[in-house]
């Protein structure tokens, strides 16, 4: 599954990144989204608005196009 599909209060580990441009992937690294790092979803906005994630480097709002490019494995 991807980060976008993660439900509020769910935790997951980052598996890998889908094909993204190099500038986007470096931005993703800046956020602390690296393989096997644990990240969590905090909140969804209605109508497909950006979602709030707790990432290694802080709390960030991400939109679908970027959160969908991050493959994750939910923690049980």
């Amino acid at each position, binding site marked *: 599954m991807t980060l976008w599909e993660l439900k509020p209060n769910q935790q997951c580990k980052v598996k890998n990144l889908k094909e993204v441009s190099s500038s986007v992937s470096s931005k993703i690294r*800046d956020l602390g989204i690296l393989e096997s790092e644990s990240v969590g979803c905090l909140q969804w*906005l209605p*109508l497909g*608005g950006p979602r709030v994630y707790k990432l*290694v480097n802080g*709390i960030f*709002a991400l*939109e679908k196009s970027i959160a969908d490019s991050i493959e994750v494995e939910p923690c049980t």
Partner: protein
Amino acid sequence: MSGVAIIGKPNSGKSLLFNTLTGLNQKVTNFPGITVDIKKGMHEDVELIDFPGMYSFNSTTKDESVAIKKFEQFLNEKKISLVLCVLDATNLKASLTIGIDILKRANESGITTVFALNLMDEIESNKLSIDIDSISQELNSKIFPVSAKTGLGLAELKKYLIAKDYSNFNKILKSEETSFKQAQKISDNFGIKTDVLFLKQTRLDKFFLSPVLGLFSFILIMLILFQSIFTWSVPFMDFIELIISNLGEFVTSFMGDGIVKDFTAEAIFGGIGSFLVFVPQIFFLTFIVSFLEDSGYLARAAMICHKPLKFFGLSGKSFIPFLTGHACAIPAIFAARTIGSPRRRFITILTVPLMSCSARLPVYALLISAIIPTTTYFGGFIGLQGISFFLLFALGIVMALVVAVLISKSKATQKISDAPFILELPSYRLPNIKTLIIKSLQTTWSFVAKAGGIIFTVTVIVWILGYFPNGAGHLDDSFLSYLGKVIEPFMAPLGLDWKYGVAILASFLAREVFVGTLGTLFGIEMADENMVDLVSSIQDSGITFASGLALLVFYAIALQCASTLAVMKKELGSWKAPIYIFIGYSVVAYILAFITYRLFV
């Protein structure tokens, strides 16, 4: 002279630390070639240089990469004798990643780095602890636990800065690991163990980002923002008006009748004075916007707005330039640098000038007081004049959205690259009022200083043209009236006489000139011993309700600001778009003003 660089991650309280250390003793400096906001200030005899916040050394957004380049240049040119890196104690991992990058880079240039571990007040008030000695050992650097907000630990930091003995630290920091891994290890081992602070923030977000209450509070906050600009500033405006009119009468009472007295009364007090009255509004708008920014709410507002703004080809981050644009388009255009997507940044820059900036406020306030009755409803809570202001602001915003859609659909815009929306949600904090006041005073002052010069020049020219050849009381056969007769055919369709035509023409490079010009014109016309206030002069001039509305609509849309066009050119690298936009907005403004006039006449 070399100084101390203050640098760190955004939202680490860096600016507050800089403000606390320098007080009012600071200025924003312009470096040739760049327009990034690098501030300089003095703490005793130590020069402090405040760099914009940055997330990493290989950044992708424009403002960060400019800041990094400038920092490296300063290191290479030995303009820095010490790097003071600000860390966020509540989010050590993130601020330490860039912190270690900075440390390594400064090491290469042989410059010492020390760390200010900020926000320690939050750590203490939540009874948490950080192993500062161990972190200091790991980094081989001096660490000052401080709170810029409460003043905790600042005495020691100040002592160190003043002593200027910056040697002996972190000459070697050897590691094969990436800065990120190092930062992670250090914060896991020695940072705060629990997510107490984080939980507090989540609770607030559950409220401010919830579907119903979140939207409701967003609308409420925006309403309070605009309402308070007008209600809070009223006593200050009345006070300034009182001072100016008394001062004018006092000064002119010493002068004999003649040209000097006429000039002082009409051009100086009538022209510039009528503009100064509106300065408090600029102060309050800047104050409230800065309050929202520092509290952390502005980022949430940008997030809420992302989906709707995306529909118009903009980004949620366009919300911040749009809001700032209500104070002034120039900082707003710079603020657009935080928009990661070049395409959405382009569209934002072109539409920001439609926001009702502070220079429009005097024009709105003057015309609204002249043509809209003071009727109020609900026990004085809502008034017709307030509603008129609101509608004009709304007109600007609606126009901006329409223009944004049109621009975003064009082929040329589609070619510009796009990037996804990523936004840090900083912790909610109670803003420091002193910092806010300093910031608002700076913005207000720079606006007054800049606008003042233009207004003075134009006012003097207008006064000379209106006064000669026949002197006061003969405006109708002055040089200005000949000029006015030439442009009258363009004004007649809006039901306006040549005096308003002259005021519009004079304000084409700076819209705030409109009020001063009218003040001067009516001053010459009346040639009165006592100064009559401008609102009554306008009402007596026989302007109709429809013409007044047409003027308001015209001013809401036309891009009458040479500085905005220059900054647009600087940010976009070409004159092409600014020129098209200038012509386009002028034509649309005129057409809509005409339609408004026909509808209400």
